């Protein structure tokens, strides 16, 4: 929700990044305040997922210019685990499988790591079990999830729910959801969206990276940004997403080209 008195959480200025020597981000600007929900849309290859991974600190991506401030701190100076502990959460588009590592053990370690960072008490396995079962109800998840290895043999929908479960446990200040809607059927989409909406609050912000407007029927954004060729080329309200759905992305490229020519 947009509030006039809200403070800035994330500030991205003129961000450039490459992967394997290829420039993907070419000057991204984005400001996210507490309490807001942003959607970043755009065609394949426009740099949406790259932006998400660069913010989280994936080693395969090199930042070649610009800056990112998170609560005023230089986010790019922090290793990925420190960014996570500071409250930046990425729900992965393709969560990896980690055979042999129990989901409950993994969740508890992640939870306690973040708790310790915030100066809060860590939970022992029994206390944690109560907490995690409570959060799982929110996402209609079966208790047997806990006994399985992290994401191993999970269906696409189960993996996505597991991501949102982690978000529910870690209570991040900034949650970036990278194509969380892809591969979800309508029921799963509804459950996941319900979970995300429950977690949205005045103090945290959500950035949805998505290809389709469909998700935005369930999680209503305050801002919609369109990325094209490594930059955010258009920003509007939720009605922009509807327009994109109707007209596709092509007209935006033309409009910005035209704008550039004029200026």
């Amino acid at each position, binding site marked *: 929700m947009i509030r006039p008195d809200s403070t800035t959480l994330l500030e991205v200025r003129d961000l450039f990044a490459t992967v394997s020597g290829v420039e993907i981000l070419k000057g991204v600007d984005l400001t996210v305040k507490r309490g807001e929900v942003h959607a970043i849309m755009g065609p394949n290859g426009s740099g949406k997922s790259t932006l998400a991974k660069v913010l989280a600190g994936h080693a395969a991506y090199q930042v070649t210019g610009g800056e990112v401030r998170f609560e005023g701190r230089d986010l790019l100076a922090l290793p*990925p685990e420190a960014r996570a502990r500071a409250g930046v959460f990425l729900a992965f588009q393709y969560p990896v499988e980690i055979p042999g590592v129990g989901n409950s053990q993994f969740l508890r370690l*992640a939870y306690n790591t*973040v708790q310790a960072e915030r100066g809060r008490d860590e939970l022992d396995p029994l206390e944690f079990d109560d907490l995690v079962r409570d959060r799982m109800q929110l996402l209609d998840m079966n208790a047997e999830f806990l006994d399985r290895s992290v994401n191993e043999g999970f269906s696409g929908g189960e993996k996505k729910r597991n991501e949102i479960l982690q978000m529910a446990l870690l209570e991040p200040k900034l949650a970036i959801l990278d194509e969380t809607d892809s591969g979800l059927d309508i029921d799963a989409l509804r459950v996941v969206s319900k979970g995300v909406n429950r977690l949205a609050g005045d103090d945290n912000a959500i950035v949805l990276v998505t290809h389709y407007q469909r998700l935005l029927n369930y999680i209503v954004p305050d801002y919609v940004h369109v990325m094209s060729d490594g930059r955010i080329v258009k920003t509007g309200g939720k009605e922009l997403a509807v327009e994109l759905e109707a007209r596709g992305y092509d007209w935006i490229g033309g409009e910005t080209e035209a704008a550039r020519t004029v200026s």
Partner: protein
Amino acid sequence: MSAALQNLVNQPYRHGFVTDIESDVAAKGLNEDTIRLISAKKNEPAWLLEFRLKAFRHWLTMTEPAWANVTHPPIDFQAISYYSAPRAKPKLGSMDEVDPELLRTFEKLGVPMHERAALAGVAVDVIFDSVSVATTYKQKLAEVGIIFGSISEAVQNHPDLVKKYLGTVVPTGDNFFAALNSAVFTDGSFCYIPKGVKCPMELSTYFRINTEETGQFERTLIIAEEGASVSYLEGCTAPKFDTNQLHAAVVELVALDNADIKYSTVQNWYAGDENGRGGIYNFVTKRGMCRGKNSRISWTQVETGSAITWKYPSCVLVGENSVGEFYSVAVTNHHQQADTGTKMVHIGRNTRSTIVSKGISAGRSSNSYRGLVKIMPTAAGARNYSQCDSMLVGDACSANTFPYIHVHNHGAVVEHEASTSKIGEDQLFYFAQRGIGAEEAVSMIINGFCKDVFRQLPMEFAVEATKLLGLKLEGSVG
């Protein structure tokens, strides 16, 4: 990530110091006189000298095996000293008579030699270079009829038992290194559990090679009589030298009717430096014979050290319904080479065996599983299940699996599963994104990978093994 992965595996070896102790070292070289010297030093009966000489003569006709997936320069068997003992060997009525320098050495290694300071419930036999220097809890064990101590003492005090079983599981001419061991073995542990006795504590042997250019050739013999059971642990370390040292041990286990032997090893010999210089050549023959019906022999090994490991703890399942098990974790880093696995030979009816092997390779190392499952025509109803998993850490290492399956009985059931996985950048990033650093992530992944084996280890050993793996792989991931 590779930089980080590299770091994690590059933990320095902590047991690489040398103890400054006066030793009685035989001149280098090997001939019949060397063997007579060893036998005389140990005041052995004539039959044992004969045993040695027979083995030696056989060894002379043999050639070093070349089938293992390892490479090393030729070993000059004449450049090794075959006997080294701390001088002024005390007659060990009590621990207080042990050379204080030796005590300090083992304290540094974390091996409890004082009974009062010992881990409750673990009896230890300590082998330093070629001789056993101390055994704890001997008296207490003797009260229930268990004989536990060095094999040299057993030769003196229980010659009939030694003569009855020595070489019955691993014959003198079994293979090149077993023949060499049979000729020159200097000490080792001996353990005899009488009929119906459940050993009240863990028994353990701790091996330490100290002197440069000596070989260690220990011989261990464990006998569990009808209905007896014992859990036995073995640990080993060696100082860092630039030269390679040879360790060619033989372990024989005999389980009679309804007997149960569990043999666990945490092997942490010096592995050589990051350029592959120095380290132990660990060429070991370990075999157990389930002679009696319903007997069970279980091998659990955690192999982290040695420049080269060549080792196949095996079970010969003779008795009806007998059970053989092999649980193994082998970790290699830098230039280490491991060719390890097991042999399960099914002879009796309804014999069963389980093989769980986990290989972890990092650095530029090579890690091979080699296993034989052989079902003889007599083994009706035999079953085997094998699972061999490999994990790669980084891009410069290799993992191989060489399963040999020979089935000569149509009623037998043999299952084999294998997998290879890799600790990937994406897995580490996933952990990092949840606030978990690379070292903790790798340790979690590796422990998860190994948990089927670790849960077979006695409690103290499981903790030690987990720590050891963490150290071993520390800095290999970033």
